[in-house]
């Protein structure tokens, strides 16, 4: 086969899938597509051909701003944050408040 420029390398889009109204959109994976409308169609074929789906979001992968796994300091908690946790408090019994 002659080495020619292939035409299969489209941009990637990340896909979010909502299985029913009231549920959150959940990240399911990504697709290659030439534009956002086609990305939705690809996402439907790839991620919604079997599971129930009422809404799909796609976003260009390159538009996502990410933390770096290497930068562990970003999530470091220097002080005790247990006061943020409901379990840190003793609730009166049989009282929902």
């Amino acid at each position, binding site marked *: *086969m002659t080495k020619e420029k292939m035409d*299969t390398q*489209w941009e*990637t889009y990340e896909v979010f899938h909502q299985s029913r109204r009231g549920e959150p959109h959940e990240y399911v994976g990504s*697709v290659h597509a030439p534009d956002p*409308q*086609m990305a939705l169609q690809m996402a439907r074929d790839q991620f919604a051909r079997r599971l129930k789906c009422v809404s799909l979001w796609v976003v260009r992968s390159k538009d996502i701003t990410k933390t770096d*796994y290497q930068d562990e300091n970003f999530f470091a908690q220097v002080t005790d944050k247990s006061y943020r946790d409901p379990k840190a408090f003793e609730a009166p019994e049989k009282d929902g408040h």
Partner: protein
Amino acid sequence: MDRTYDEKLADFEARVGRGEKIEPGDWMPEEYRKNLIRMMSQHAHSEIVGQLPEGKWIPYAPGFRRKLTLVAKVQDEAGHGQLLYRAAETLGKSREDMMEELLSGKAKYANVFNYPTPTWADVGVIGWLVDTAAVINQTMLAQSSYGPYARAMKRICYEESFHIKQGYDIIAALARGTPEQRKMAQDSIDRWWYPTLMMSGPPDSLSVHSQQALKWRIKTKSNEQVRQEFVDHIVPQIRALGFEVADKDCSYDKTSGHYRYTQPDWEELKRVINGDGPCNKERLDARRKTHEDGRWVREALAVKGRKSAEAA
């Protein structure tokens, strides 16, 4: 302060040892990356080429329901190929490069698809035997240390269970059929037995990549373990339907609790994988033709992509 290679490797191996996943962007040894790209791209190619032996039966499937089912299965395989190409891309190799390696004949794919499907029973046996072997392997790979591979495997295994059931259903129908239909099914089971056993790969002692893959938990079971699991699972099923296992020496060993079986011919695997199989050329020719036949669609989509970018 820059850490040394040995420090990074120690951190990496400790993470893998704790059963944590490696994610894209994490530091990883170059050999880990290479081994994964090799495995994942071969896996993707196998899904793509795997459409062909069954796809050719779509026009001849007996009845509308079986036809629809087969179309759905072949579509799943295309989807699995895309999921895996995308997961492999996170390691820094483009889908385009991987596709090109497949079309040029440089890349390998599952050897089992270099065998022919002359009868309808072969469609059933691929779903039942071949996909059972694949799922046992893929369930193991769903535990892989590389996050994107493990995630792709979980999704794929779920869909593969449908493939196995539809395959079993085809063979079970033939088992209830005429003597000719039973013979056709038995003949197919016989032909696919050894190629299916070969799927889990040569014994680990002969496999160069296997030791490293195990060490870094790219895979979590040896080739022999995976093959034994398959044999233990499938032999009782074959016999329950009233068929025979091609290996006449295959028998249950009470002491070990496993079936004993005859090893496939590993020289045949080497020969077929290197191009000298019954269908290597047919598969690659079909893949290239499909790629060329679809070119106009990709070109049209590229124009649409440019236009929507201009409009934005």
